[in-house]
């Protein structure tokens, strides 16, 4: 069989966006190859969730068991390995998410099938799978080819496949779970929610985002001063939080917050994918970066290629002047 399979990702009673993106990708591939898309759903007591994707794939394979109530890479791996071995799909898609990063490489290795991770695109040309990935801090893309095999596995980056409507009448197939308890070597305990913050960067109209380019913690005072002049809040990229210069609740990106202010000003931020997903839907994006090749300029509306410390003082003065008029 040369079907396309994909794994539904869900968490805390919601289907995650990446699932719809993968189904959009999977349907397009299936159509091109004249084959079918199967969505694999591992979960518990989740009729409502299955119902909500009923029109998204030709077939939905449901494995309903309490063991799949929460994600556990090891339980998922056992079940998926069984399914893939039995069905032998041409290609299986998993999200390159915190769940998928835990699962995909181990699953591919167990099955002995060629796999790769974090793909922006996958094509099948003359029966050969070609994936596009990003490397070197987002500065280059790579086309990747695979060792020849009847079955492949890839994980897809979030946000790469704009979700399309679908109105397929899905066939629902229930499958017996190969396991009924988590393996004794890995147990899910609980979720830890993000701490409640005093400054909510998601509510601000103007966000001044700072990255490693600000160099020193002491330079934050300058940024705070600029932000208050322009009437915005200070947010940041991950390294600023890692270095403990700002609290976690100021972090923008995949493992931080998603912001959509009217204006986002990126100062000394390179524009890594994980940062950009958290701010790319801002109304207007201004980036100041001394590296003209920084990927942030692929997302910005306006760019200044310069040292931020040279521009910030005059920028502040121009804002003050503008406000006084």
């Amino acid at each position, binding site marked *: 069989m040369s079907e396309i399979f994909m794994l539904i990702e869900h968490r805390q009673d919601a289907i995650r966006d990446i699932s719809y993106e993968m189904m959009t990708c999977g349907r397009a591939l299936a159509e091109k190859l004249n084959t079918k898309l199967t969505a694999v759903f591992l979960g518990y007591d989740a009729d409502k969730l299955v119902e909500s994707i009923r029109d998204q794939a030709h077939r939905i394979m449901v494995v309903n068991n309490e063991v799949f109530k929460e994600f556990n890479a*090891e339980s998922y791996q056992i079940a998926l390995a069984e399914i893939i071995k039995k069905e032998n799909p041409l290609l299986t898609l998993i999200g390159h998410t915190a769940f998928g990063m835990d699962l995909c*490489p*181990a699953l*591919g290795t167990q099955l002995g099938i060629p796999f*790769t991770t*974090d793909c922006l695109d996958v094509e099948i040309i003359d029966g050969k799978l070609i994936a596009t990935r990003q490397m070197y801090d987002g500065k*280059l893309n790579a086309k990747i080819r695979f060792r020849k095999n009847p079955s492949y596995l890839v994980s897809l980056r979030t946000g790469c496949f704009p979700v399309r409507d679908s109105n397929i009448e899905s066939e629902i197939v229930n499958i017996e779970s190969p396991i009924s308890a988590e393996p004794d070597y890995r147990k899910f305990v609980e979720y830890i929610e993000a701490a409640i913050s005093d400054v909510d960067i998601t509510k601000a109209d103007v966000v001044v985002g700072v990255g490693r380019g600000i160099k020193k913690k002491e330079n934050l005072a300058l940024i705070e001063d600029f932000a208050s002049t322009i009437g915005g809040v200070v947010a940041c990229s991950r390294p600023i939080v890692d270095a403990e210069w700002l609290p976690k609740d100021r972090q923008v990106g995949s493992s931080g*917050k998603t912001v959509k202010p009217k204006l986002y000003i990126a100062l000394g931020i390179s524009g890594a994918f994980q940062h950009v997903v958290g701010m790319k839907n801002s109304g207007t994006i201004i980036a100041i970066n001394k590296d003209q090749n920084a990927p942030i300029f692929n997302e*910005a509306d306006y760019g200044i290629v310069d040292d931020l410390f040279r521009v910030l003082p005059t920028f502040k003065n*121009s804002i003050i002047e503008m406000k006084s008029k």
Partner: protein
Amino acid sequence: MDIIVCIKRVPQTAEAKVEIESSGKDIVKDRLTFDMNESDMYALEEAVLLKEKFGGTIIAISLSCSDAEDTLRIALAKGADTAIRIKAEDFDELDGYKTAQLLSAVIKDIHFDVIFTGCIATDDAYSQIGATLAELLGIPHATLLTNIEVIDSISHVHRELEGGLQEHIEISIPALFTIQTGINVPRYASLIAIRRAAGKEIKLVGQNEISKDQLLLNTQIEELFIPPVAKQVKIITGSPGEVSKELAGIIREKGLI
């Protein structure tokens, strides 16, 4: 507690111009600076913290060319007891899978309780070595750690999920963990330690010790190219005073503040 830390030396490309080499499959490396991969620094620090608590030894291991011996010496200076370099020059083209196979070929004969790797290498950005290596060794794993506490032979770990959410899971050891940045504050190596590390032997493992026959590549790079532009940026040029006026004008015109 015996700990293995996998370490990679990577080009620092965040602020550098990255050029494609004539083969179209690699980058021009001679003008780039190299350093220990960012999340590996946190992995090493986590190993040192565990060793300080429980005793034991740390082995730093890197599949790399001889240039990376400097990076391994930094690991020695920061607290690793021994260092192993798997000679990349012996094994031709590499991908994540082949790298994991080579690491596994060496690690399978070493005693360990925990293996740490970084959660991603910033050059090829696969995030697959850790979980692949764990599977090859037949041990459990967890990726993207933001916290770890070992009590008896159970590790209580926090994994980073999306949007600030984390999960708490329990994993029995021996196990492999990939470490996310920010889990600790990596220490600097003291000058004395750096000097001491300079004299230490780095164990070399190559094709004489590892058979090349069984090694498999999952993937190969066909070509590298500059990413297509998602959105056409307007670059504003001029002196800081000029660009600032123009930006303020845009902000006013669009009613952004």
